[in-house]
C-alpha cells in the first residue's frame, strides 16, 4: 500500500455501521480490465495440508482458493461486460464441504494458460510464518542442536474464523453493496481488521460473503465481544440557518460531505511510509502478485497481506490481516535476532536488556527449546569468549 491510498484507483465511500463492525465500501470509477477473480471452493477438510514446495508443509483451515485469470495484453480486453468468460470454476452458490483430506500443492500455482490458483490470506500468513523460519544462520554456542537443525519448526499461529467474530455475520448480511463497489475496509471496534479489494464489481458481489470465512486476528475477536457499538456519524443540521428548501438541500449536501470525510483517516495503519516490505510471488502478465510484511513496530497496528498490483500502480486485489500484539512481538523478536546475526548478546544490547532476560522473552513468546540455558547464563556472566 506504499505510495498512499490515492494511487490505488479506489475511492472510499461512506461507511455503514452495524454494532461494533464498520464497513467502508471501496469503489472504482471504472472496473479494472484484464484481470478477474473467481472462487474455487475447496473440498479439503479442516484442517487441510498445503505443500509449500520447498519441503515445508503447511496445515490450516482453508475454505477456498481464488483463481485469477488475466489477459496477457490488458489493453486490448473487451469493454466491461462484454468479456466472454469461461464457466466459473465453482458455481457461485457452492458451499464448503468436509470430505477426506488431501494435500494442496503450492500456495500459488499456475493452472495453465492465463490462470493462477492461490490461497487467499494464506499466502500472506505463510510469509509471516516462514519469517526467519530456518533458525540461526550462524551456529552460536547458545543455540541448541535442534534450533540449528530444524529451525523454528513447527511454527504455529492462531487466528479466528470470521464466523467467530460476534456481529460480523449480521454486519455483512445487512451491508448494502454500492454500485461499482470493488472492495471493503473492515473495522471491528474501529480498528482496521482487514482490507479486501477485487478487480471487478461482479467479483466483489460474488466474493462478499467469503469475508466471513476469512481469518481475523485475536484482538478483533476480543474487541467484538467487549465493544457493544461504535459511534456512527451523527447528522446535525442547524435549524436556525435554514430558511428555504435550497438552504436545506445545501445543508444536507454539507452533511453528506462531512460523512464521507468522517472515516478517511482510519487507513493510516496500513499506509505508513516505508514500514512495509514486499516480496514478489508471481507475475500475471502486467500484474504482479506479492505479499507484504510489516516492520513489526511494537505498540502499533501491524498488518500482513497480499496484493495484486498493475504495472501502473493500481491495486487489483488485496487482502490484509491484522496481527495480534503477541504476533507482533514474535515478529519483532525474530527480526531483531536476524538483524544481529542471531548473536544473543548483541540482540540483547540492541533491545536494552540482558541475555537471560531475552532468553526468557524468547521462551515466553512460544519458542521452546531453542536456547541452552547454561550457555546463556555464562554469556551473561562472562560475555562472549573471543
Amino acid at each position, binding site marked *: 500500500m506504499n505510495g498512499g491510498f490515492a494511487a490505488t484507483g479506489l475511492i472510499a465511500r*461512506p461507511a*455503514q*455501521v452495524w454494532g461494533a463492525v464498520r464497513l467502508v465500501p471501496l469503489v472504482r470509477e471504472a472496473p479494472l480490465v484484464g484481470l478477474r477473480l473467481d472462487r474455487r471452493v475447496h473440498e479439503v477438510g479442516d484442517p487441510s495440508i498445503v505443500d509449500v514446495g520447498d519441503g515445508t508443509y503447511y496445515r490450516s483451515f482453508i475454505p477456498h482458493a481464488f483463481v485469477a485469470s488475466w489477459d496477457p495484453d490488458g489493453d486490448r480486453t473487451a469493454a466491461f461486460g462484454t468479456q466472454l468468460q469461461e464457466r466459473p470454476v465453482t458455481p457461485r452458490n457452492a458451499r464448503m464441504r468436509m470430505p477426506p483430506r488431501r494435500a494442496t500443492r503450492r500456495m500459488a500455482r499456475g493452472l495453465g494458460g492465463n490462470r493462477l490458483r492461490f490461497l487467499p490470506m494464506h499466502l500472506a500468513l505463510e510469509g509471516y510464518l516462514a519469517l526467519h523460519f530456518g533458525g540461526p544462520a550462524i551456529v552460536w554456542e547458545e543455540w541448541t542442536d535442534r534450533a540449528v537443525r530444524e529451525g523454528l519448526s513447527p511454527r504455529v499461529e492462531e487466528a479466528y474464523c470470521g464466523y467467530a467474530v460476534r456481529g460480523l455475520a*449480521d454486519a455483512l*448480511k*445487512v451491508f*448494502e*453493496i*454500492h*454500485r461499482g463497489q470493488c472492495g471493503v475496509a473492515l473495522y471491528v471496534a474501529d480498528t482496521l481488521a482487514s482490507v479486501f479489494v477485487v478487480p471487478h464489481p461482479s467479483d466483489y458481489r460474488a466474493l462478499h460473503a467469503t469475508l466471513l470465512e476469512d481469518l481475523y486476528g485475536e484482538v478483533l475477536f476480543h474487541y467484538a465481544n467487549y465493544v457493544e457499538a461504535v459511534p*456512527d*456519524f*451523527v*447528522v*446535525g*443540521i442547524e*435549524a436556525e440557518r*435554514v*430558511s*428555504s*428548501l435550497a438552504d*436545506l*438541500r445545501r*445543508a*444536507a449536501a454539507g*452533511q*453528506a460531505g462531512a*460523512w464521507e470525510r468522517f472515516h478517511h483517516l482510519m487507513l493510516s495503519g496500513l499506509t505508513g511510509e516505508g514500514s512495509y516490505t514486499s516480496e514478489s510471488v508471481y507475475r500475471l502478465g502486467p500484474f504482479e502478485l506479492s505479499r507484504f510484511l510489516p516492520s513489526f513496530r511494537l505498540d502499533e497496528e501491524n498488518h500482513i497481506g497480499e496484493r495484486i498490483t498493475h504495472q501502473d500502480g493500481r491495486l487489483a486485489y488485496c487482502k490484509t490481516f491484522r496481527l495480534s500484539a503477541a504476533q507482533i512481538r514474535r515478529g519483532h523478536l525474530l527480526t531483531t535476532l536476524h538483524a544481529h546475526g542471531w548473536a544473543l548478546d548483541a540482540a540483547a544490547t540492541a533491545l536494552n536488556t540482558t541475555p537471560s532476560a531475552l532468553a526468557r522473552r524468547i521462551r515466553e513468546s512460544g519458542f521452546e527449546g531453542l536456547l541452552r540455558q547454561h550457555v546463556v547464563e555464562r554469556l551473561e556472566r562472562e560475555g562472549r569468549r573471543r
Partner: protein
Amino acid sequence: MVDRRDLVACEDVVMFVNAAVTSTGQREFRDDAIAQRLSVEFLHEYILGNYRELYAASLALDINDFNAALIVRNLLVSSRDLTPEVRRREGELIARRLELMAPQRVWRLFRELARRGVNNRRTRAIMRDWTAQRRDPVLDAVKYRTGVKATMRHAHLEVPAETGTFLFSSPRKVSAFGTPLFETWRQAHYAQRALYDLPYSVAEGLASMHGIKRATFLEKIAPQLTRLERLRLQDAAERAGVAAVRADLTGMPLTRLASYVLSLSQAERAARHDELRHAMTVSARRVAGPAAGSWGRVVAVLDDSFSSFGSTAKRQRPLAVALACRFLLKALAGEFTGLWTSGTHDPLLVRPSGPTPLGERLIDALELAPDRLIVVSDGWDNSPPGLAAEVLRVWRERLDPTGATAVVHLNPVYDAEGFDVKRLSASVPTVGVRDAEDVPALVELARFAEGRAGFAELRRYLADRQDRFRSRRAAA
C-alpha cells in the same frame, strides 16, 4: 393536559397495533425468526396483562391473520375474572374476526388450542359457532381434514354420521361413501381420474402418490384452482408449458400481484410491461374504490435499497409493499409523483439493491410541495445515517410549521428489538403496513402515532371501529 399515564398507554397501544399489523414471526432482513417470534409473543403478553380491553379491541383493526390468531388464542386461554358483559363483547369480536380470517388459519388456531388443552366453555362455543356457519362442511372436511378432525374431537362437536366415518376411519376400511365428495376422495386413492374433482391442495399429494407428471396434473387440475393458487402457480405452469393455468392478473389482490411482478426476471418484466402495468393499475383502482383521485397532490418516497429484499422467508416483501403502494397512491391521488431511493423511473423494473439515501429523496419530494408526502421504507436510513430524520425535523420547524403538507411514514418491517416498527423521525408519524390495501385506514391511524391525540380519543376511535366492525357482521 394529557395525563402522563395516558400518554404511556396511548404509546403502548399504538406500538402494539403497529406490531400486530406488520409482524409475522418470520425472518426479516435484520432479525431472525426466533427473535421476531420472541419479541411478538412478549408484546402480546404485555398488552394482554395491562390493557385487556384494548387488546381485544385491536381485533377490529386491520391487523394481520398471524397476530389475530395469537390474540384470539391468548384471549381464550383465560377468561375467568371477566364480567359476563366483557366476555360477550370479546366473544363477538372473536367470532367476527374468525369469519374474516382464511379458514386454514382458523383451523390451525383450533388445533393450537387443542394442543394447549384450552377447553373452556367459551372456546367450545366459539368452535361450534364458527364451524356451524361454514358454507360447505363436506368440502372443509376433505380440504382441512386434520384441522377439522382435531376440532371435532377437542370440542366434542356433533358431526353427521358419514363425516364422522370420513374423519375417523381409514379410507381402506370403507367400501363406499354416500356423500359424492367423500366418495371421490376415496376413489382418488385408487383411480387417477377421480383425483381431478378434488381441491388442488388435496389432489397434489395424491397425484404425487400416483406418480403423475407435473404438467399433466396442472393441466387437468386447472379448473379446481382457487384465485391465489392460480397466481402462485403461474411460474410453475409456465415452466411446465401449461396454458390452462394462465390467470387473469387484473383480478388479483394488489400486494400479491406486486410480489408476483417482482418474482419475474427483469427481461420478462420488460417484455410483459404493458400487461403488468395494466393489471397493477386496475387492481389498485379497485382498492381505491370511490376514494380514487380524492387525495390531492401526493408524493411518495419509496425504498428500493438492498434491505427491501426482506428475507428468503418473505422474499422482497418490503419492496412489494412499496410497489403496491406506488400504484395505489397513484390511483388515490389527483396528481402523483413516485420517487425511488435508487433513482429508478420505471416502477415495474425495480430491484432491491444499493444503500438508502432517504434524506436526499425527501428533499426532492418536499421541493414538489405536495399535499401529502408518504414514505414507504423500513426506516433504516443509512446514507448518511439519520439525514432523513434531520431533514424532516428542520423542515417541520422552519419551513412548514403549520403542517401544510401531511407526512406519513409507512413501515412494512417489524423491528424485534424495539417492539415496534422503526421510526424515521419523532416529528413524523410512523405506522406499520402489511398489505398496501390497508393504507387508507392506516393513514387515519397515523394521528395517534404522532402522540398529539390523547388516550381518550384513541379509546373513542377504537370503540367506534369496534362498533363498525360488529355492525358489519349484523348487516352480513
